[in-house]
């Protein structure tokens, strides 16, 4: 993986020599292992060293993107030539192009994204870990009758970004995850759920005993589920369900969606979109963070952006192109793969915690829903209309009672943000997008 910067320079030089005004190169190379164990047996053992290069060339305001997994010099030279040819078909666009030189750079903060112990971890050890994880889960409760398997994934990767305006960045990462998916069965009805832990460091993953216990708890708590009645009640979002609402906001607060009028947050900059206690942050500099990085995919330094403060929308997250289109500053939020153009996207994106314990929030509900999971279809990003399949536990008189499934919850995201009543103090950074527990005063439940 040593030669990637030289490879990037080679491609840029080739592009320049053919007359490019500007160009940039993204190279991603990794070493990955996946182990899946089911019922004590290794079901899948997968190893690979994937690599890919993406090239963008700008010439007289024309541009094109090409990519390949073939790093042989002759193939790359052909690719550069091809890029020029297809670029000429594009319409000249005054807004396209690399970022201004003055904006380029790398954060000097130590982000702690690489774990050398992970790189040397033998495969046998990974197999032993997942085997033990599944074994513990299967034995914890007699209601657990089957397993979908326990899975280990790890990856060590390097991202190199270089452009003709002098930016050259390289960052090494590791990541690993453990997950366990179980089945429980009672009275002929099967239920399944899972739990996982992921991070940049092996030692900071949750203990396998804790992952197994949580997977079992989540699976057996679904037993005896009912379909709830159709009604309108308060809904408590647990941190997993809350993450779904933040995912919707992440897709809607980006400059691309705003410019394209494809977001319910159009014309909301500087306006109150949520209750006063609502604060949203995007921070690419959290040490050990799953979406942390020293520079974005166009070479702008990492940073912390306050997206929403005291309910007021402060920023649209922008890459270079949509910042220019909207007349706003780029916020260091360019994301891309080798196969795609940069576009704005979130990094570590989270809602600030509030003052209530989750128990206090639950006990405040007389008759309502504790929401534990939502299905992914059912959001209209243009209008914010929200209608999603859901699962949870019914709350009566402040107490969790029976599990509920096979129903939907519906509202509009803008209405929901204005109806947040209590925000929990239980924010943790277990994913790239994170929320604490929170309560929304009223949503429509469609059940029986």
């Amino acid at each position, binding site marked *: 993986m040593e030669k990637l910067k030289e490879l990037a320079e080679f491609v840029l030089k080739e592009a320049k020599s053919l007359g490019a005004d500007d160009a940039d190169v993204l190279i991603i190379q990794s070493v990955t292992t996946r182990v899946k164990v*089911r019922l004590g*047996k*290794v*079901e*899948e*053992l997968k*190893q690979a060293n*994937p690599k*890919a290069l*993406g090239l963008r060339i700008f010439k007289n305001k*024309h*541009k094109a*993107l*090409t*990519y*390949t*997994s*073939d790093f042989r010099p002759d193939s790359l030279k*052909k690719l550069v030539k*091809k*890029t020029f*040819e*297809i670029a*000429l*078909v*594009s*319409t000249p*666009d005054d807004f396209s192009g690399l970022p201004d030189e003055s904006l380029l750079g790398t954060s000097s903060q130590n982000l702690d994204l690489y774990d050398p112990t992970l790189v040397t971890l033998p495969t046998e050890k990974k197999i032993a870990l997942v085997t033990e994880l599944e074994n513990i889960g299967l034995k914890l409760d007699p209601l657990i009758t*089957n397993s*979908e398997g326990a899975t280990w994934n790890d990856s060590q990767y390097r991202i190199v970004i270089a452009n003709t305006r002098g930016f050259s960045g390289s960052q090494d990462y590791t990541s690993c995850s453990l997950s366990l*998916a179980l089945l429980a069965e009672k009275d002929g*009805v*099967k*239920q399944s759920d*899972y739990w996982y832990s992921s991070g940049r460091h092996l030692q900071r993953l949750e203990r396998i005993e804790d992952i197994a216990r949580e997977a079992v708890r989540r699976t057996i708590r679904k037993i005896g589920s009912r379909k709830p009645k*159709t009604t309108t009640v308060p809904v408590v979002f647990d941190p997993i369900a809350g993450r779904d609402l933040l995912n919707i906001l992440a897709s809607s607060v980006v400059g691309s969606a705003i410019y*394209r*009028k*494809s977001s319910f947050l159009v014309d909301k900059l500087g306006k109150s979109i949520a209750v006063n206690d609502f604060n949203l942050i995007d921070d690419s500099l959290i040490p050990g963070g799953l979406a942390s990085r020293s520079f974005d995919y166009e070479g702008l330094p990492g940073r912390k952006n306050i997206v929403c403060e005291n309910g007021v929308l402060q920023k649209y997250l922008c890459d270079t192109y949509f910042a220019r289109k909207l007349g706003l500053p780029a916020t260091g939020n360019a994301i891309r793969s080798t*196969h795609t*153009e940069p576009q704005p996207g979130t990094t570590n994106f989270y809602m600030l915690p509030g003052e209530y314990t989750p128990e206090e929030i639950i006990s405040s509900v007389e008759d309502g829903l504790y929401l534990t999971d939502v*299905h*992914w*279809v*059912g*959001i*209209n*990003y243009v209008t914010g*209309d929200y*209608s*999603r*399949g859901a699962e949870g536990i019914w709350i009566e008189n402040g107490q969790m009672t029976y599990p509920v*499934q*096979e129903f*939907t919850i*519906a509202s509009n995201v803008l209405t929901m943000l204005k109806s947040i009543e209590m925000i929990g103090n239980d924010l943790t950074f277990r994913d790239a997008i994170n929320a604490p527990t929170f309560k929304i005063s009223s949503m*429509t439940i*469609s*059940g*029986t």
Partner: protein
Amino acid sequence: MKRREFLKNAAIISAGITTIPRLTKMLLSRPTTNLSVADPVSIFGISEREARELLNLALSHGADFADLYCEYHISSLLRMEEDQLKDVSYGIVMGVGMRAVKGDQIGYAYTEELDLAQMKKAAMAAATIANQRPGSSSSPKPVKIKNLYPVKQASIELPLDQKLKLIERANVAAHQSDTKIVRVTVALYEDFRQILYYDSMGKYFTDQQLLTALRVYVVAEEGSNRQGAGTARSARHDLTFYDKPQNQPEEIAREAARIAVTNLNAKPAPSGPQIVILGPAESGVLIHEAVGHGLEADYARKKLSNYSDRIGQKVAAEGCTIIDSGLFPHQRGTINVDDEGNLPTETVLIENGILRGYLHDQISARAMQTTPTGNGRRQSYAHPPQARMTNTYLKGGKYPPEEIIASVKYGVYAKQFSGGQVDITKGDFTFGVTEAYLIEDGHLTAPLKDVTLIGNGPDVMTKILMVGNDMRLSNGTWTCGKNGQSVPVGVGNPTVKISAITVGGTRT
């Protein structure tokens, strides 16, 4: 970390443009470099002897089966927004996947270095799944393939101006269809895969898989009220696919515009159980989610599916026959041969309400002592095959669609869908409806806002009251996700009346 399988209608792309369309002046008959679309054998330069050597290495630790999957994949995208051809991209990705199988255990490794030493390394890595005495491979014999997607010439390397004309036609039509249309995005996607395959039992094939998709996304605006809608057509075909009346760029554009403008007046949908009529073709998403995934034999044989151990039982209403067939010429879910060298088949999953069979890949067929159904599919060389659907549909029945609609006093008519999801274990599925109407006294009336429908597969399938005589396969861009792998699929349905399904509206 979401484990559920999903089906996505990728027509939903992001939008662009306000002003009067003007033709792109650039371009026109600029020749493209011909990056020689060579045959798979010469691309990978693997001789029969080398293939056997690699397979023997994969068997060297005692695996009982091994295969070698080489893929050379070209893809291209042209995207117009604001009347400008903004994105032009082109890529070549290639690699070799080595698999060693011991019983139902899989060792898998792949490399993107096309030299024999790296391929041998991958074969050795895959081999370690087993721990016994080495086996050896049989001499290769070609699989006899019938070409289900014949074309004169694959269009991926055609001059870009021909493709641009299609895009411009869609762009103009979308703008002209209604003054309320304020944003139009049009994208043409093309894929061309060359596959070379050998396995240790002597199977050998090459295939060229093409796929094209044209998508239009529009935003309609009236005051501060906005709605977006996307439509698409896709097939394993060349550009002549877009000559057919129903696939013409203008037709695709007008449909997107019509839905967006209609939805400007959409009313909140009712909530709770309702009589639901599903329109033809696109609503095959229901069959895919409620039935299809649960009948993929990998889940079924591990007793993870709510349809496990239920062959011969009644699992759907009488009159319901559900089929998966990889044989429809040029369909998006069609394959000449699956990714393990097995020929596609027509598999009757449910016959007149009775569960008849599962969809098999090589491993599940062996474990359940039956023959593969040609459903072993993979996203790419980087992925081991799994049991997957091809084109899945409910067979047409006897009722004219008008008669079905006329039979409902109050209910919901669902026409276009964004996608769906299923919990295979319990059978609960959801699907998102993007175009729906209220049915009142046998007539379609008010358009309804986007709404999600939720039900339990085995339960809803017994509530099918009427099956229409208008079965059609969708020409949309349906893409199915399972365990992190995406593959193109086809769905189909006639008009169907369901006695009760929960509608996730806001009106109580």
